[in-house]
């Protein structure tokens, strides 16, 4: 076949369109996954609003805000990679990808520091660790932190997935045809933006409620 990865396609253009479409379908699927978890959070928030608002104040707003900025910047560099790939400026594209995944790593490191801080303060109701919480309604605050760890770690897993895929893409860069390079950048870019948008929703829901 003429430079397509799957034998089903006649031309690389059609394959790229199909890949992009497949990624959109996958994003629809992922939206349902996060949607279910957000729904759980929102139902709980309706029930235990004051407890959640109080517990939310124990999260680190500066670190959360910093991380939000980091992720939004990474989406910008990813968009840059897409543009550069369209212009076939391959060297610059790779650099944009390296910066993007670097920013993703930076997010994970900061998130790790945040987790460490919360575990140290006894705010992590995980694995039988003691939950020490001074505020009102500790039972529902514990529920809040349970959800916080579930939601942010699920997001972090998606981010790790994105970084691994970008790393793989860079590793296979030399052997990939221009059509395949462009196709991969476009598809992975869509995914990256999606993971970014999930955080854009997660940040206000977890950090900014009732501030």
């Amino acid at each position: 076949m003429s430079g397509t990865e799957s034998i089903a396609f006649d031309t690389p253009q059609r394959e790229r369109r199909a890949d992009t479409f497949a990624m959109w379908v996958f994003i629809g699927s992922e939206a349902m996954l996060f949607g279910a978890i957000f729904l759980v959070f929102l139902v709980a928030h309706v029930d235990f609003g004051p407890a959640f608002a109080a517990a939310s104040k124990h999260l680190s707003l500066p670190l959360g805000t910093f991380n939000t900025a980091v992720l939004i910047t990474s989406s910008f560099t990813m968009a840059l990679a897409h543009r550069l790939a369209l212009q076939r400026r391959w060297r610059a594209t790779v650099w944009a990808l390296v910066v993007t995944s670097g920013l993703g790593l930076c997010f994970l490191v900061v998130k790790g520091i945040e987790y460490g801080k919360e575990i140290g303060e006894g705010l992590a109701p995980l694995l039988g660790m003691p939950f020490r919480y001074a505020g009102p309604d500790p039972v529902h605050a514990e529920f809040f932190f349970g959800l916080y760890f579930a939601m942010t770690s699920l997001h972090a897993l998606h981010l790790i997935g994105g970084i691994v895929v970008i790393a793989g893409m860079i590793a296979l860069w030399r052997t990939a045809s221009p059509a395949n390079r462009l196709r991969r950048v476009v598809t992975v870019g869509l995914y990256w933006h999606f993971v970014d948008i999930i955080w854009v929703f997660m940040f206000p829901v977890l950090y900014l409620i009732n501030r």
Partner: protein
Amino acid sequence: MTNAAMSGTYLGEGSGPRAWLLTTDHKRVAWLYLVSLTAFFFLGGAMAVLMRIELATPAGDLVSDDVYNRLFSLHGIIMVWFFLVPSIPASLGNFLLPLMIGARDLAFPRLNLASWYVFISGSLFALFAVVAGGVDTGWTFYTPLSTLYANGWVSTAAFGVFIVGFSTIMTGINFIVTVHTLRAPGLTWFRLPIFVWTLYATSLVMVLATPVLAASLILIVLERVFGIGIFNPALGGDPLLFQHLFWFYSHPAVYIMILPGMGVVSEVLPCFSRRPLFGYKAVAMSSIAIAVFGFLVWGHHMFVSGQSAYAGVVFSFLSFCVAIPSAIKVFNWSLTLRKGEISFETPMLYALFFLALFTFGGLAGLFLASLAVDVHVHDTYFVIAHFHYIMVGGMVTAYMAGLHFWWPKMTGRMYSETAGRIAATVTFIGFNLTFFPQYVLGFDGMPRRYHTYPPEFQFWNVLSSAGAVVLAIGYLMPLFYLGWSLFRGARAPDNPWNATGLEWQTGSPPPPHNFETMPVVTRPAYAYDMKGLEHERFSPHREEAAG
């Protein structure tokens, strides 16, 4: 199977384990699925037979209550997650979708193979839970039983089901993209065979509902392993939330299980009554309607779970609504038969049995959708009978119809028609004997999930257990005559049933890339009434296939 006659076909492309296990040919991946699904089907069936033997007498004499709980849990987990959900889409759908739309393969052949490996790893992971000691939560993993009380390998089994979910999503994405991007020239949406429409509707449900199941299973595992109490009231959680999340997936999932069966029947009925499918557009659109409505009725599993009465009324109303597109299909299938030249080959027998059993099971669904009646029969054998009529009487019968219909295409061999007809009839009799008594039992108040019962229920239970034996024979028979046909069956012509559809215009078995020349479509589906079909009876390839 591989010999000189198979060269030039997809079966002639090598026969070692590497040629099968590393293939990206959708036709071979379909076989990988078919073989593993058959194994799971008989494994799950064996559990059911053990349960029926136990229930032949009122006392618990064969197995203890604990073992019985594990038996029905494993029966449900295996049958629902590892057989019914992937059954028709992953085997017949995988084989036929590219053939039916005139494509060389699915859009993502490697993703397709990967989906099988994910499926196998997930299901073996869950089976490990069986060997290690079993699960006693039922296939639904209800909280707080599954999170606080169950002493089995719940996390392992739930995680296995979670992994299998990925394979479902992979298949769904692959099918959706394939239908959108790889249809042959001239094959417009309203010329697609209904089987393709139903696979498409199924894939939509797979892609949009499975992640919600994944979320609820992750939360169970998080609760059991990490102690995050999402469903634990003591930690601020809500056990009922799990039922909402679970049924938000699992009700649409029952349409994952039945829609492809409806597609198979829509192919078989027109072919053996020599008539175009009546109301093609209505049947196509009702598939999409079922997929959409399916997302809005999950609350009817929770009429007695303490949800608000107003929610109950709304869910009841919506559940009646979902019967409408199903009824549209049944009426259109029946009208397809009207004035047709009906012949009773094996696939047709199975398809007609499907029609009867699906209708019967579907009508019982209306009873269950009524709030007051549901309170009476909730968690009784009435519910068991209802969903087995749909899932086994409907889906498995349609699966058998499809398997017999496309067997010559898949293998290039014909099976014994007499044996096929006998097996179909035995299945039908055995099925009704097994499950009709359960309607009576349920209405009389026998609850599900118990290994003992009061002696007055014994008559119907004995009938049901006897039926299970007949049913088992009906399902074992094809294993032998289909297996025999692989080696000794007569060579199948390209189009043994004289059917329309692109898959019949290529060789039996098809060449590695499906078509020697890529087909062009100029007619609607099911053109059984068009002039020129008589001519095609003797010519394997249509003229327009070449042009």
